[in-house]
């Protein structure tokens, strides 16, 4: 353990208790009735509790201000503080560190936004006058999350043109309304044609012609990576980190916004390392796989025109990475415990694998000079083992080989192919 370790790791109350008792005994403590609740024991515990509360301040501050790796925001996974992940996401040490040291802002979660078309054409339709936030739409088509997200119509002066801020919809007319999800994050991202009108308006129906999208907060590790790339934005030589940085962030550290008005969801970029012809290729991926077309357009625009990353001698082409689906199946073994079901275990494994594949570099690991790498089956086994507490053995049967090749510009996507759970 280094000095830095001792400053970042919180001291346990049991170690403080042992220290305090040691001091008391060294001072010839006469009390022998050390039972739970006894007078002297409670005085001692008062000291332990006070010291414990006080000494937590130092490691929290050291972690928060000491390094990009140890700083976290509320809601992030924190290896030193298990409670942190359960806190409501908000700006904290990590956001401040990244902003102050690297000039990079962390993308907040956003409410999914988009448009619905309201048709007042059904039987019994009446002339309708309504205000923003007066209608409710629900994601009912396809496979909505549970509970299904709901959406409301949001204010837009170009739509709500009546003098009192309302809009009137004639019988037989249709109207395109901007809507916003009432739940924060990507959970509100609905495919096209899946929303319907919940508010009862006889003769009126609604649906979304285009997808509605919202973002989760920028992943902590992705944000740390962007912070590390940020120094490259000052270079005039077009380093690969500059391309990677400007695919998602502007010169001022804020997010690149796509044509739909949302922050781009690109979380991985692969840039070709060398070229004898002056051609540089960039590949973009989002947590779910290849980057959205709108994000690719926005990233290229930022790289080539807004930030002028590309030197005149270079020809840059940025495209969405190509998905390489990897089917994963296997078996796990764990001790039977009350309340633990196969379904819960498999759900944990799938969530861990989704999270792993969402951050696996484009081109895979252990890349050659051409950017071609691999996905290691042993890594997948390790991720599966960590997917649920108590798993002591995990075997991946698919893929059967020790590695799966991943070519340059290809991003691995997870395809669940079945897990068998054995309770022992």
């Amino acid at each position, binding site marked *: 353990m280094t000095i830095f370790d001792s400053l970042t790791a919180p001291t346990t109350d049991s170690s403080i208790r042992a220290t305090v008792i040691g001091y008391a005994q060294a001072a010839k403590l006469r009390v*022998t*009735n050390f039972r*739970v*609740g*006894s*007078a002297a024991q*409670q005085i001692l515990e008062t000291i332990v509790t006070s010291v414990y509360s006080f000494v937590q301040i130092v490691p929290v501050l050291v972690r928060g201000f000491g390094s990009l790796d140890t700083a976290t925001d509320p809601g992030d996974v924190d290896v030193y503080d298990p409670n942190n992940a359960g806190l409501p996401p908000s700006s904290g040490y990590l956001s401040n560190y990244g902003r102050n040291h690297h000039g990079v802002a962390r993308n907040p979660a956003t409410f999914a936004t988009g448009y619905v078309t309201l048709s007042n054409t059904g039987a019994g339709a009446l002339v309708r006058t309504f205000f923003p936030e007066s209608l409710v739409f629900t994601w009912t088509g396809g496979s909505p999350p549970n509970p299904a997200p709901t959406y409301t119509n949001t204010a837009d002066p170009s739509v709500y043109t009546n003098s009192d801020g309302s809009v009137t919809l004639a019988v037989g007319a249709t109207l395109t309304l901007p809507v916003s999800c009432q739940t924060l994050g990507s959970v509100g991202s609905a495919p096209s044609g899946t929303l319907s009108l919940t508010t009862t308006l006889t003769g009126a129906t609604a649906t979304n012609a285009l997808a509605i999208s919202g973002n989760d907060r920028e992943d902590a590790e992705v944000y740390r990576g962007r912070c590390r790339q940020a120094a490259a934005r000052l270079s005039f030589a077009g380093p690969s980190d500059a391309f990677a940085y400007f695919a998602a962030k502007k010169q001022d550290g804020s997010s690149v916004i796509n044509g739909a008005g949302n922050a781009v969801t690109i979380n991985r970029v692969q840039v070709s390392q060398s070229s004898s012809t002056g051609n540089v290729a960039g590949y973009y991926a989002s947590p779910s796989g290849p980057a959205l077309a709108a994000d690719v357009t926005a990233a290229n625009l930022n790289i080539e025109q807004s930030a002028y990353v590309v030197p005149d001698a270079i020809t840059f082409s940025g495209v969405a990475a190509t998905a390489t689906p990897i089917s994963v199946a296997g078996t796990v073994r764990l001790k039977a415990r009350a309340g633990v079901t196969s379904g819960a275990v498999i759900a944990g494994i799938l969530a861990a694998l989704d999270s792993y594949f969402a951050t696996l570099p484009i081109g895979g690991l252990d890349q050659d000079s051409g950017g071609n790498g691999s996905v290691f089956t042993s890594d997948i086994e390790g991720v599966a083992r960590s997917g649920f507490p108590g798993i002591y053995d995990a075997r991946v049967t698919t893929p059967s080989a020790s590695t799966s090749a991943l070519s340059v510009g290809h991003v691995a996507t997870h395809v669940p192919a079945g897990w068998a759970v054995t309770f022992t």
Partner: protein
Amino acid sequence: MAINAQADYGLDIACWDDADELFTEAVGLAVVKQDAYHRLTTENVLGPQGTDWGYDCRTLLGAPSEHVKVMGPILTEVLTRDDRVLTADVTIDVTPNPTGLDLVTISVLCQTAQGPFEFTVSVNAFSEETLSNQR
């Protein structure tokens, strides 16, 4: 940390509602007696295994008298959580008070390996005294 054998109740700081300025000591049966008193005046204590340690009898104030009167067996169970207390007889008296809360008095007689001890808790007075001491 030593846990004293039942026959040797050890030494502690004398503390009924509070310790005195000289931190006078309590020895033997007096230690068990003050711990029993604290069992009836404190629900949780600090430290490991401190949750649901005792029962704060101030919660009886204002409760219906028929409810308070049948709390004896529960308080007996609380007192005998201390393995030094072999038996505990608890008597609860509720005196109607037309101008305020009923007056609740708890009388305790405990047996230990080193003899009996008894004490009485006037819950109404205890509440007032303790609150004033804690200012």
